[in-house]
């Protein structure tokens, strides 16, 4: 029998508002412990939450980007449980009336569009940080005490729950990367897994190919990188298939991976049946996002990465791969579009931008599209080395493609050497910086020599002379 994986994700994104979700303590990263707290986020008796308007605005924005409906009436609930990182004994979250529901997120692929269903996206507060000490460092097991730092407690957190629409670890990776890029481009989160501002859990089950049943799923927690998650998912799929093929049953359980020891088997916990006793948070009044504000936010949404891939494919007849790579860096896509608009051939521009600009480490944001279009046009008739030099210099101020593409260039090294020496003497600080490792300055020197000679020099020879003079 052949098996089909069924995968759903639950993603937590910390919003990068200035202040916390329910108090106005300023958010920071790496501050000394318990220096970003107040009576509210320490849950002193009598303190009350006041929701952060910006966090709500951004959640609506994210919901729209996920293709969700924005609820006309949303409610915060209390989720009750005890843990030292949860100072009120409940988390303010959303339950049956979340802000965003029923979305559809476009994930373009080489064989067409896929959509990942979004069950909901809701707003809640992040827990504080527990540090387990005394046993094996940082581990829960074996610690003899726990230290609590409430700086992070109360950070606005959006939880996004997908439908089980993903069919492979690779699907999940692509979706997560696109989602990450989306929140980053919306400007609402750093979404950095190392900092914990993007975290996710994965629900995995398998079923016979062609069936529509949903079998018992396991939950993988502690995913700390896309690659790690992809490996974890693949391994769990294999494990479940093996169980079924041996005639067994998969248990509903939570698997905790230890990110520091990938080879170790996951920790299993059959968590004590939780009863969170959700009820509407009586310290808060309902949210009712005004329809005109929602519509304005919808109109103001920037182009999303998924849409950009499709548009680049369609408008420029690019292969999927090119569109995906370009879209992956908005500045790269923008340079591509500037260059094509200035007359560059689309596919040739795409190749040059994706490969050579990236390889040369040039900041695409500062490259002039018109000059780059000239290089694209000249690429077949000038020496490869000249093209490489030109690209390396394309990010410097005053870059002119003509300097590199002229036919009457001086190729005599002895004629060029005094000019090169003069330029280096005239720019001692740049020379020092170059020798200190800022090798990107090579383009700057080439540009200076070219300007001195009105563009009439062979860049390859200039380049060789510069390297020689700079002693590298």
């Amino acid at each position, binding site marked *: 029998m052949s098996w089909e994986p069924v995968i759903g994700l639950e993603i937590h994104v910390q919003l990068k508002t200035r202040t916390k979700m329910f108090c106005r303590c300023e958010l920071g990263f790496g501050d000394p412990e318990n220096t970003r707290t107040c*009576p509210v986020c*320490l*849950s*002193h*008796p*009598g*303190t*009350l*939450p*006041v*929701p952060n308007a910006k966090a709500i605005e951004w959640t609506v924005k994210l919901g729209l980007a996920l293709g969700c409906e924005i609820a006309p009436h949303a409610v915060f609930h*209390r989720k*009750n449980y*005890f843990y*030292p990182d949860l*100072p*009120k*004994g*409940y988390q303010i979250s959303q339950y049956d009336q979340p802000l965003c529901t029923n979305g559809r997120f476009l994930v373009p692929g080489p064989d067409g569009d896929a959509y990942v269903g979004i069950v909901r996206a809701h707003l809640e507060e992040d827990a504080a940080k527990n540090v387990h000490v005394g046993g094996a460092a940082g581990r829960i097991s074996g610690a*003899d005490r*726990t230290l*609590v730092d409430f700086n992070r407690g109360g950070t606005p957190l959006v939880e996004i729950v997908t439908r089980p629409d993903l069919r492979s670890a690779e699907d999940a990776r692509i979706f997560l990367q696109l989602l990450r890029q989306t929140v980053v481009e919306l400007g609402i989160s750093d979404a950095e897994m190392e900092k914990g501002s993007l975290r996710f859990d994965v629900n995995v089950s398998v079923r016979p190919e062609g069936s529509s049943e949903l079998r018992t799923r396991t939950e993988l927690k502690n995913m700390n990188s896309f690659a790690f998650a992809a490996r974890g998912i693949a391994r769990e799929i294999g494990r479940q298939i093996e169980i079924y093929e041996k005639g067994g049953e998969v248990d509903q359980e939570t698997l905790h991976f230890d990110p520091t020891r990938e080879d170790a088997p996951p920790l299993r916990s059959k968590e004590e049946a939780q*009863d969170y*006793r*959700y*009820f509407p948070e*009586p*310290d*808060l*009044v309902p949210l009712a996002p005004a329809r005109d504000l929602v519509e304005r936010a919808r109109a103001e949404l920037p182009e999303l990465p998924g849409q950009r891939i499709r548009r680049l494919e369609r408008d420029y007849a690019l292969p999927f791969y090119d569109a995906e790579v370009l879209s992956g860096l908005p500045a790269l896509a923008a340079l591509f579009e500037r260059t094509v608009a200035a007359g560059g051939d689309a596919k040739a521009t795409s190749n040059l931008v994706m490969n050579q600009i990236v390889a040369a480490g040039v900041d695409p944001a500062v490259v002039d599209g018109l000059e780059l279009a000239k290089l694209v046009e000249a690429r077949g008739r000038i020496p490869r080395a000249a093209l490489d030099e030109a690209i390396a210099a394309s990010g410097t101020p005053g870059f002119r493609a003509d300097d590199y593409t002229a036919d009457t260039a001086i190729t005599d090294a002895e004629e060029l050497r005094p000019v090169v020496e003069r330029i280096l003497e005239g720019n001692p600080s740049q020379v020092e910086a170059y020798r200190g490792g800022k090798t990107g300055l090579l383009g700057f020197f080439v540009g200076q020599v070219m300007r001195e000679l009105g563009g009439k020099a062979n860049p390859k020879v200039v380049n060789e002379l510069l390297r020689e003079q700079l002693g590298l």
Partner: protein
Amino acid sequence: MIDTLRLTAEDAAALLEDGEVAAAELHGAYLEAIRARDEELHAYLTTVDAPEGEGVPIAFKDVISTRGIETTAGSKILAGYRPVFDATVAKRCKQAGLPLLGKTNMDEFAMGSSTENSAYGPTRNPWDPERVPGGSSGGSAAAVAGGLAPWALGSDTGGSVKQPASLCGIVGLRPTYGTVSRYGIVAFASSLDQVGPLTKTVRDCARLYRIIAGRDAYDSTTVELREPVEIPAAEDLRGLRIGVPRELNEVEGIEAGVTDAVRRAIDLCGGLGAEVATCELPRSVEYGLACYYLVAPSEASSNLARYDGVRYGLRAEGNGAIREMYERTRDEGFGDEPKRRIMLGTYALSAGYYEAFYGQAQKVRTVIAREHAALFERFDVLVSPTSPTVAFRLGEKTENPLAMYLSDVLTIPSNMAGLPGLSIPCGLSDGLPVGFQLIGPQFSENTLFRAGHALERALEFDFVPPRLAAKDRA
């Protein structure tokens, strides 16, 4: 010689304004009265020797957070807890220049109707020390009635300002939900808690309400007042339409002496020009108590989860595991009544019971609000006794929680609807004060003050407990 038993806050303010008494002298007179009488009454948990402010001194129920001054909410679990911030009402009183006399005794976490549930011993009624002052704001009520404070703040969830005011023969206001900030008020039931004044006169009540009321950016459930608070001066009730809900006046358990005193007050209303008619609140009264004892404990079970021994308050260590630390801290720190309500609320919210209990209670709440709203189409004010009984004896109801809960049967329905209620003394039954409850629609405090003031003048009730007056003369 300042007669703290008789001095109203308004009189005290006049003395200060005219320079006849210095603020420190006034404050000293109350501290002297506390020294003389509080050993018996036990109205205070903490007193303040050298407070800031040049105005009329005030006492706060120990549920109100006061920066640097121990705030226990009557519980052992908060013994020694000193807030690092002031509650908004405390801040507003400070800004108004009111020096703090001290923090008053209360039922633990405001759960009770007699102040016997305090972890620090009961408060006694100034009219008869064998009897309770009511609760949960019993310390504040006894302080004002016993001349230990010119005025005080309490908090009211199911009747905790109105009922002790009634039992101590003074005036108490439970304001419209949302008009007074709850920020810094140790929470019992968030959708019901409101801070209110306990005073000797209705005019004092209006003055204090004016100081504390209004929108607070730290409490999302507060709103701006619809109109400025007026200090009442009306002498009659002409044009006022008064409804007398049959059920609120006839429910089983109302003592005959209470009914008699309230009847006389209602008759007086007619004499002062009000139109008086009977009306009905059938489901509000029949289901109000049940509704309240689902909603309030449910919210309380969650509000009291923060007392976990981690950041403040009591901690009992146990065997070194976090779970045992939690369980022992909470077992040792909470008294019987909070435990009972935490258990009840946890049960009512738990899987499988939510719809039948908490969910259904919230719908009953809608029914109660609608029933009241319908009456306010025809009436400006509804009246009834505040408490079915006069002050009862210490220990009389402590063994039977349900009997104690019935103390609030007349105050709870309008509280569930978020409505304001004023209790004024209307006479005596067996030598003990009887309270008269006036309920209005949301934001009708000015109407309640006008009616209460006119009636108070006509009733000429003497708020000084005779036994203390006699003692003072001796």
